[in-house]
């Protein structure tokens, strides 16, 4: 099992950041790499078990199932059903924690998955910096830094 962990500090209250990232169908609105997204079978985007089907700007299509969503813990977990990345048993969790000292947000994004050993370092790089960190950077910019 390979693990990727990325964390950052976003200069905004956790509730504001959560409003943006909570929408499981909202990736095109806040990440720079997703072109379009829809929820399959007309489900609501906060319905646990729903599937988002989105297309990256580079053309790749990814389907992910919402496994857990918590407005109490400010966290969201999902699994990849289909993707061009050749990963298996991929489960990721994005979570926010308020930093009480300064009204900021500590954001964490973690993924666990299986992959062929020779692909591991490239995937860690692609997911950790290409996806998670890039999305975090967009959030940081959106909230003013």
């Amino acid at each position, binding site marked *: 099992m390979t693990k990727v*962990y990325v*964390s950052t*500090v976003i200069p905004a209250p956790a509730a504001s950041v959560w409003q943006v990232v909570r929408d499981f169908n909202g990736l095109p609105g806040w990440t720079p790499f997703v072109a379009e997204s829809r929820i399959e079978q007309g489900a609501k985007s906060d319905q646990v078990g729903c599937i988002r089907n989105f297309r990256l700007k580079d053309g790749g299509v990814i389907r992910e199932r919402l496994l857990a969503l918590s407005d109490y813990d400010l966290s969201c977990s999902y699994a990849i059903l289909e993707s061009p990345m050749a990963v298996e048993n991929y489960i990721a969790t994005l979570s926010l*924690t308020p*930093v*009480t*000292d300064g009204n*900021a947000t500590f954001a964490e994004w973690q993924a666990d998955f299986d992959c062929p050993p020779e692909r591991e370092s490239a995937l860690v790089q692609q997911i950790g910096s290409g996806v998670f*960190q890039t999305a*975090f950077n967009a959030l940081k910019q959106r909230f003013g830094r």
Partner: protein
Amino acid sequence: MVKIRQSTIIDAPIDHVWSILRDFNGHDRWHPAIASSEIEGGEPVDAIGSVRDFKLGDGSRLREQLLALSDDQTTLTYCLLEAPLPLMGYVATIRLKPVTDGERTYWEWHCEFNPPPERRDELTRLVSEQIYRAGFAAIRQRLARGTPVARAEAPLSRTDSSAPNGSASARAPSQGAVSAATANGASTRAIVVEEHGGPEVMRMRDIALPDPGPGEVQIRHTVIGVNFIDVYCRTGYFDLLKPPGVPGMEAAGIIEAVGSDVSDYRVGDRVAYACPPVGAYAERRNMAPDLLVHLSDDISDETAASSLLKGVAASFLLHEVYPVKAGDTVLVHAAAGGIGQFLVQWAKHLGATVIATVSTDDKARVATARGADHVVVYSRDSFAEAVMRLTGGRGANVVYDAVGKDTFADSLAALAVRGHLVSFGQASGPVGDWDIGRFASKSVTVSRPNYGHFTDTSEKLAIHVDRFFGALRQGVVSIDPPTRYRLDEAQQAHRDLEARRTTGALVLTV
């Protein structure tokens, strides 16, 4: 039930913050509310169940018990056993998480307890502000000041390429202090640490250089050694340099002027040194000649400036701290590092079987080339098991360990009965507190040598210098040419050293 959660971001890497907070008995050294603290019964600070008995500034006394500690999760949970306030059922957890984009740390402190209803608000405020937020502020301030995190008595090397530390206090009168060059006085170019901090705090400046005073000589440096201890002087981790000051404790050069009351040195003598006080990152300096070494023609300035500190250290480690004998099994950690390479070569020459540990395959090749009989990549294999297998279950007679926290326990496990663990550095962090009663299981000797105590008089030093230069001449130890930087490239040299981009020694040339 009241639940409190406070969190903050600390501008320091998680290992650094954790090394302070993990010490269950260390809060009197950082929290402003705590006057003194001790662990009952002399238990180790990281033994689950240990109780800290501590006093606040007003004299009131509290007892708290360690319930859980995880170096993996960087969490510590404890409960209150006794207190002058009704914090009934108080259980608290400290938790750290890394901020991966930037060397910062998320620190959360939370608790729950049952207060009497009428004191609920008062106690909630007290815990949140006077304990948690005050603690955040104290750690932040402490890290900003660059106060050493390790206890003062343990200032030691942290990387492969560093030497044991110099003696911190014995002879550091000037701390490399500088005054600006004046229009009519003599001056020299020097690298000045303007304030404690990153490599950028080092600037090339002209500083005043008076004629050598009584009992001093003036040296024109040709080659200056760069050691990890210089980084600690720059950051303030060690208290050897008070800014603004000139770092550096190892160099070679030529005597250019001699003050009164100096008899053993003349203008034109080639010399080298590896000792406090700091001040080597300069074209010229004045210093007392007590610990200078005369260089003979067959030892180049570059060789002296890049190897004297490490060679002298290897000499006393192998001949005085534990005299290695033919037939001994010697375990050397970080065997591809500066001192490590010397230890491997020299121990082989003394007739020992040398087992080397390294962190990577590339470094394994270096250790093999230096003559190690067996090499273990410790990130991959258990070196304690390997040592036992290779020695038929006997273990090593001596372990030279400058890695510290990550290796200390297994180094003990790798020792033979009546074996000797020489702990001379802590590249991975302090080794923590150990109950020495356990050492009886193998009649273990543990020593913690300090460079200064083996080299602080010319008599003590000469033995090691002669022995080391002799070993160099005979080819017992050999060194690769160092990586060279100009004096004005000192910032880059530190960056490369800290990033571990280099192998072998680094020098500044003048």
